[in-house]
C-alpha cells in the first residue's frame, strides 16, 4: 500500500449485469492532484466512478480500492461518503417533496457526526449554505426547492458542485460534469470546481471531451478503453486526443489485453509526461 | 338489477335461429344470450351505473328493427373519399357502399358476407375482444347483431384514405333496436384511419346498441373516429374495446351523442410491451339529455403509455358523467399514464360528475390525473368583450378554445373537418340553451 496515496486502485475489475466492464484498473491519486480520465463511450469511465462510490447495479469481481488507507470496497455507500468520497453524478436524480436545504443539512451533519465534528443547527447551516452557493453562483432561492426538481441541466450540475462545497470531501469524482452544458454553464461550474481544489483534496475528472480540461487543468490525464487505462500522460495528452480521437484505442486496448504495455506509463507518477517527439 | 325482459330473450332465441353461421358463432350467440339473461339491465344500485342507470331502457320494449332497410341515403352521411359501408337499420346498402382501392392493403366487407363465405378470417377475433360476461348491452349486441363491418389492414398497409362505416337507425311506429357491429383488425406494421358515423333519425323510440372490437397487431397504428348523431329522445349504448399488441398504438377521437339515455364504454388493454393508446372525447349535452362515458385503460405489461383527455360542456339541464379508470397491474413497470378530465357547466340545473380512478399495483410508474370543473373564465370573457366581441360570441370563442383540443392529433382533412363541424354544432346548441355564465 502506498502511504502517501489518497486513493489507490489495484487491478479493479467489475461487471454490470452480464457484461465485464472494468478489466483491471490501476490508479494512484495523491492529495492535491487532479486526474482526468477520458475515453470513448462504453469504455467504463462512468462505471469506474460508480464502483468507487458503491452504486447498486455494478459488482466488483476483483481487485481493490483503498481510500486514505481504508478498504473502500468494504464500505456501504454512505460510509464512503462520510469517509470523504464525493461523486458528482452525470445525471443527478430528482427527489420531489424533499427540500434541498433540508437534505443537505441532514447530509452535512451525518458527515460531521462521523468525523466527530459538531453538528450545525439550522441557522448556521443556512449561513454556510449561502456562502457556498455563491461559489457556484447558485441562486439561494433554489435551496427551498425540492432536490433537482425542475432544475435546468446547468442548475443540476451546479447543484452537484454546491453540494461538494458543503460536504468538503477528500476525494471528489466528477462524472462527465460537462455533459449537457453550454459555455457559460461550463465556465461557472469549472470556476466552482477550481475554487475547491486544495492540497489535501484529490479529484478525478471524468470527461469525453477535452473542452472541460481547458477550464479545469489536470495534473495527469489517463485514457481508458475496454475497461482498462491504456495510456497516461500530462495535460498535452488531452489535446492530442482532441486532434486524434479515440479510434486508436481499439488497437491499444487489444495490445493491453494481450499483455503488451502501451506507450507511456500506466497509473502515471504525478506530472509524468511522455517522451518528447513521440505521440504523447 | 332489472331482470332480462322475456321478449328480449325471445328475440335472442329467434336471432340464433335466423342467423345461422359456423358452430363457433352459434356458441358465441348462446353465451351472449346466457350472459344477458343472467345480468339483465343494470339498475341504480349497480356499481358503475349509479349515475345513469338502464331502468328506462328496460321499460321500453325495444324489438329488432324490421329486416327491410331503406335504400336511400339520408342527408348528412359524409363522403371522405375512401372505402365506405353504409348500413340502414342493420342491413348493408350496397348501392351506397364503395370498396377499397385494389392496392390499398385494405379489406372492407360486411360481416354477414364474411361469415357466410370465409368465417375463418374472423373466427379468432370476433366476439373475443369485447367480453360480454359483465356487459349486458354488449351481450345483447352479440346475440342480436345481424350485420356489421369488417375492416382489415394487411401487413404493412398504409392507405391514405380513411375507411368510413356509416350506421343509420330509423325510428318507426313502435320502439325498435339496432345493433351495429364493427371488427377492425390491423396486421403488423399497418396504419389506418377508421371513421364510424352513427345516425339515429326520427322521433320514435330507438335503441342503437353498438359494439366495436379492435385488434391492433405488432407496430400497427389505428386511428379511430366516432361521431354519433341522435335526437334527444334516443337511447344509445356503445361499447368500444381494443387490444393493443407490442409497439402498437390505438388513438381514438369520440363525439358521442347525449340523449334520453346514452352510455359509452371505451376500453383499451395494453397487452404487450411498449403498447400505447390515446383516448379523446368531447361530451356535450343540453336540454334534458343524459350521457355517461366510461373509459378504462388496462396496463398489463411494461412500458405502456396512455393518455386520456375528456372534455365536457353542459347546458340546459343536461347531465353527463365521466368515469375514467387507469389500471396498472403488478409488473407493468415504466408505465406512463396521464388522465385529464375537464368540464364546463353553462347553466343551473346542468350537472357534470367526474370520477377519475387510479388502481396502481406497480411502483416504477408515472401516473397522474387532473380533473377540473368550472365555468368559462370571467376575465377572459371580459377581455374579449372589451375588444368589441359580443357576449355570446365571446362565450362561443372560449368554448371552442376549450373544446378545441378534442380534435388534436387528428390529421388535417375531411375527417377532422367533419369532427370539428359536429362539435361546433353541439356547442352552439348548448350555448343557446345555457344561460349567461
Amino acid at each position, binding site marked *: 500500500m502506498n502511504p502517501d496515496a489518497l486513493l489507490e486502485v489495484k487491478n479493479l475489475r467489475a461487471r454490470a449485469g452480464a457484461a465485464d466492464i472494468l478489466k483491471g484498473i490501476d490508479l494512484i491519486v495523491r492529495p492535491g492532484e487532479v486526474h482526468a480520465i477520458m475515453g470513448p463511450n462504453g469504455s467504463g469511465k462512468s462505471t469506474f466512478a460508480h464502483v468507487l462510490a458503491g452504486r447498486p447495479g455494478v459488482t466488483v469481481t476483483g481487485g481493490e480500492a483503498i481510500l486514505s488507507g481504508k478498504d473502500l470496497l468494504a464500505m456501504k455507500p454512505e460510509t464512503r461518503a462520510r469517509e470523504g468520497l464525493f461523486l458528482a*453524478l452525470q445525471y443527478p*436524480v430528482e427527489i420531489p*417533496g424533499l427540500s434541498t436545504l433540508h437534505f443537505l443539512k441532514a447530509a452535512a451533519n451525518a458527515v460531521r457526526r462521523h468525523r466527530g465534528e459538531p453538528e450545525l443547527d439550522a441557522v448556521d447551516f443556512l449561513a454556510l449554505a449561502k456562502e457556498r452557493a455563491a461559489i457556484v453562483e447558485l441562486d439561494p432561492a433554489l435551496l427551498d426547492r425540492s432536490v433537482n426538481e425542475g432544475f435546468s441541466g446547468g442548475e443540476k450540475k451546479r447543484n452537484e458542485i454546491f453540494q461538494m462545497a458543503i460536504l468538503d470531501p477528500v476525494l471528489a469524482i466528477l462524472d462527465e460534469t460537462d455533459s449537457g452544458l453550454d459555455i457559460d454553464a461550463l465556465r461557472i461550474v469549472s470556476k466552482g470546481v477550481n475554487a475547491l481544489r486544495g492540497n489535501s483534496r484529490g479529484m478525478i475528472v471524468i470527461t469525453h471531451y477535452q473542452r472541460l480540461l481547458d477550464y479545469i487543468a489536470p495534473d495527469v490525464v489517463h485514457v481508458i478503453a475496454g475497461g482498462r487505462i491504456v495510456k497516461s500522460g500530462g495535460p498535452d495528452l488531452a489535446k492530442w486526443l482532441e486532434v486524434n480521437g479515440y479510434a486508436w484505442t481499439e488497437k491499444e486496448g487489444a495490445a493491453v489485453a494481450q499483455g503488451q504495455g502501451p506507450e507511456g506509463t500506466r497509473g502515471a507518477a504525478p506530472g509524468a509526461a511522455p517522451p518528447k517527439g513521440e505521440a504523447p | 338489477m332489472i331482470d332480462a325482459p322475456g321478449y328480449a330473450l325471445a328475440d335472442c332465441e329467434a336471432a340464433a335461429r335466423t342467423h345461422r353461421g359456423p358452430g363457433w358463432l352459434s356458441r358465441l350467440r348462446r353465451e351472449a344470450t346466457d350472459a344477458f339473461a343472467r345480468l339483465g339491465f343494470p339498475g341504480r344500485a349497480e*356499481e358503475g351505473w349509479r349515475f345513469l342507470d338502464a331502468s328506462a331502457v328496460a321499460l321500453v320494449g325495444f324489438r329488432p328493427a324490421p329486416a327491410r332497410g331503406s335504400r336511400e341515403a339520408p342527408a348528412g352521411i359524409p363522403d371522405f373519399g375512401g372505402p365506405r359501408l353504409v348500413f340502414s337499420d342493420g342491413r348493408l346498402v350496397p348501392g351506397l357502399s364503395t370498396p377499397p382501392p385494389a392496392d390499398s392493403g385494405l379489406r372492407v366487407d360486411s360481416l354477414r358476407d364474411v361469415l357466410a363465405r370465409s368465417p375463418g378470417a374472423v373466427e379468432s377475433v370476433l366476439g373475443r375482444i369485447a367480453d360480454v360476461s359483465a356487459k349486458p348491452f354488449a351481450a345483447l349486441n352479440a346475440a342480436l347483431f345481424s350485420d356489421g363491418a369488417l375492416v382489415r389492414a394487411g401487413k404493412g398497409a398504409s392507405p391514405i384514405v380513411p375507411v368510413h362505416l356509416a350506421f343509420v337507425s330509423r325510428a318507426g311506429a313502435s320502439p325498435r333496436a339496432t345493433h351495429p357491429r364493427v371488427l377492425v383488425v390491423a396486421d403488423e406494421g399497418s396504419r389506418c384511419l377508421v371513421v364510424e358515423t352513427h345516425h339515429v333519425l326520427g322521433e320514435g323510440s330507438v335503441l342503437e346498441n353498438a359494439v366495436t372490437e379492435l385488434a391492433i397487431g405488432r407496430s400497427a397504428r389505428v386511428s379511430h373516429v366516432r361521431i354519433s348523431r341522435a335526437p334527444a329522445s334516443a337511447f344509445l349504448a356503445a361499447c368500444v374495446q381494443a387490444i393493443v399488441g407490442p409497439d402498437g398504438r390505438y388513438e381514438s377521437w369520440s363525439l358521442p351523442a347525449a340523449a334520453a339515455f346514452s352510455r359509452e364504454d371505451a376500453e383499451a388493454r395494453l397487452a404487450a410491451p411498449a403498447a400505447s393508446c390515446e383516448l379523446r372525447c368531447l361530451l356535450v349535452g343540453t336540454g334534458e339529455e343524459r350521457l355517461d362515458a366510461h373509459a378504462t385503460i388496462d396496463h398489463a405489461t411494461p412500458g405502456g403509455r396512455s393518455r386520456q383527455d375528456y372534455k365536457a360542456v353542459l347546458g340546459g339541464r343536461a347531465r353527463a358523467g365521466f368515469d375514467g379508470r387507469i389500471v396498472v397491474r403488478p409488473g407493468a413497470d415504466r408505465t406512463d399514464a396521464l388522465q385529464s378530465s375537464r368540464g364546463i357547466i353553462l347553466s*343551473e340545473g346542468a350537472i357534470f360528475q367526474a*370520477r377519475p380512478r387510479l388502481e396502481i399495483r406497480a*411502483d416504477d410508474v408515472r401516473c*397522474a390525473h387532473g380533473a377540473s370543473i368550472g365555468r368559462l373564465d370571467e376575465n377572459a370573457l371580459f377581455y374579449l368583450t372589451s375588444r368589441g366581441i359580443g357576449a355570446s360570441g365571446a362565450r362561443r370563442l372560449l368554448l371552442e378554445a376549450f373544446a378545441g383540443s378534442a380534435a388534436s392529433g387528428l390529421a388535417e382533412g375531411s375527417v377532422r373537418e367533419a369532427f370539428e363541424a359536429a362539435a361546433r354544432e353541439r356547442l352552439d346548441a348548448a350555448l343557446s340553451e345555457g344561460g349567461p355564465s
Partner: protein
Amino acid sequence: MKQAPEGFGDLENPQYRWGFVTDVDADAFPKGLDEKVVRRISEKKGEPLWLLEWRLSAYRAWTAMKPPTWANVRFAPVDFQDIVYYSAPKPKGARPKSLGEVDPEVLRTYERLGVPLEERAALAGVAVDAVFDSVSVATTFRERLASVGVIFCSFSEAVREHPDLVRRYLGSVVPPHDNFYAALNSAVFSDGSFCYIPKGVRCPMELSTYFRINAAQTGQFERTLLVADEGAFVSYLEGCTAPIRDEHQLHAAVVELVAEGGAEIRYSTVQNWYPGDKEGRGGIYNFVTKRGICRGARAKISWAQVETGSAITWKYPSVILQGEGSIGEFHSVAVTANRQQADTGTKMIHVGRDTKSTIVSKGISAGFGQNTYRGLVKVLPHAAGARNFSRCDSLLLGSRCGAHTFPTLDVQNPSAQVEHEATTSRIGEDQIFYCNQRGLSSEDAVNLIVNGFCREVFRKLPMEFAVEAQKLLGVSLEGSVG
C-alpha cells in the same frame, strides 16, 4: 417480482411498542347483541328514557341493514354476535374524585402510554379525558375549563349534567340510520367525549382524548360530540393505541362536530393501530363515521390525520358546508404496510353559497399494503361560487403494494370551480443511492423523503402532534433497511 431496493425492503412489523395488556378486573357482558343487551347498557349507565329510546330505535334500524362492501377492501365478515359490547374496569368503591383514587394498575397503563395525567400536565396545557375501555376513568383540568364555560367531559357525564345540550345535538350530524356502523354505534355506544365551547370563547388549551381497546374481543364504540357555538374556537387531538391480540377487533366510532357561525374546530388524529402481523392476523377493524357541519356563516372545520396500521380502515371524515362562506379542510397521511388495507378519504358537501374546501391526501404503501383514497366533492345546485381544490398523492415503496385513488367530483352548479390532481411516485434505488452518496443512511433517506412527502399535512397538526406523527412514521418504516 422485483425486489424492493435497500432502504425500506419489506416494512416488517417493528417492535410494536404499545403492545401490552393490562390485567384488570373487567366487568364484562357475555358475547352477543340483542335488544336486551342494549337495555342493559343503558341501565348500567343510568341513562334517561329518551336516550334508551334513541338507542333502541337505532338498534332496530341496524337489524334491517347490511354491512357495506367495497370493491377494494377484503376481509373476513365480522360475526356481530361474537363480540362483547360492554366492558369496564371495576372501580374500587365509588367513582374516583381525583387521580389518587383511580386503580393504580390503570394509571400505570397510562404511564406506559405516555398519557400525562399528572398535575404537572397542566403546564403542558393539555386536558386529558382518558377512556379506559368503555368508561371514562378520569378527567382533569375541568375547573380551568369550567371557568371559561367550556364543558369537556365524558359522554356519560354530559348526559347526566347537560342533557339538554346533548339532546339538542346528538345525531344531528350523523343520524342513527345514516349507515350500518353508525346505527350499531348509536345502539351500543359505550362512552366518549362531549365538548361544548360557548359563544365567542377561544378554548384555552388543546383538548385531547386517549383510549384503547383492552379486553379480548371487546368492540370499541365511542361517541364523540363536539359543539363550537358562534365565534368559538377549539383544537381537539385524538390519539389511539391498542394491544396485541390474535383476533380481529372491531372499532366503530361516531364523531359529530357542529360549528356555528364564525366558529372554528380543528380536529387532529394521530392513530397507531396494531397493524396485524406479517400475515395480516390480529389487527383492528376500524370503521368510523366522522362528520362535521358548518352550520353558520364563515364557520370552519379542519380534519387532520396521520394513520398507520389498522388491519382494515374505513373512514371518511366529512364536512357539510351549509353556512355561507364556510370552509372545510382535510389533510391526511395514511401508511399501509405488510398486508394492511386502508380505504379512506373524505366528503365535502357544498350546500351554501361561496363555500370553500381543500383536500390534501398523502398515501404511503409498502410491502403488500393496499392504500385506497375515495373522495367525494359534491356541489349542490344552490351552492353558488363553491371552490374546491384537492390533491391526492401516492408514494409506493416496493413493487408489491398498491395505491388506488377514486375521487368523485359531482358538480351541480355552474359557478362552482372544482379542481383535483393526483400523482403517483416511488422512492427508487437511484434516489436512495444519491442520498447514500451524500452520507445519509438508506433509512435516513427514506425518512427524509417520506417526511418531505408528508410535509404539507404535518404542518396542519398542532406542534406536539406533528412531532409524534413524525416519530410514528419513523417507527412504521423502522426495520425496513436490510
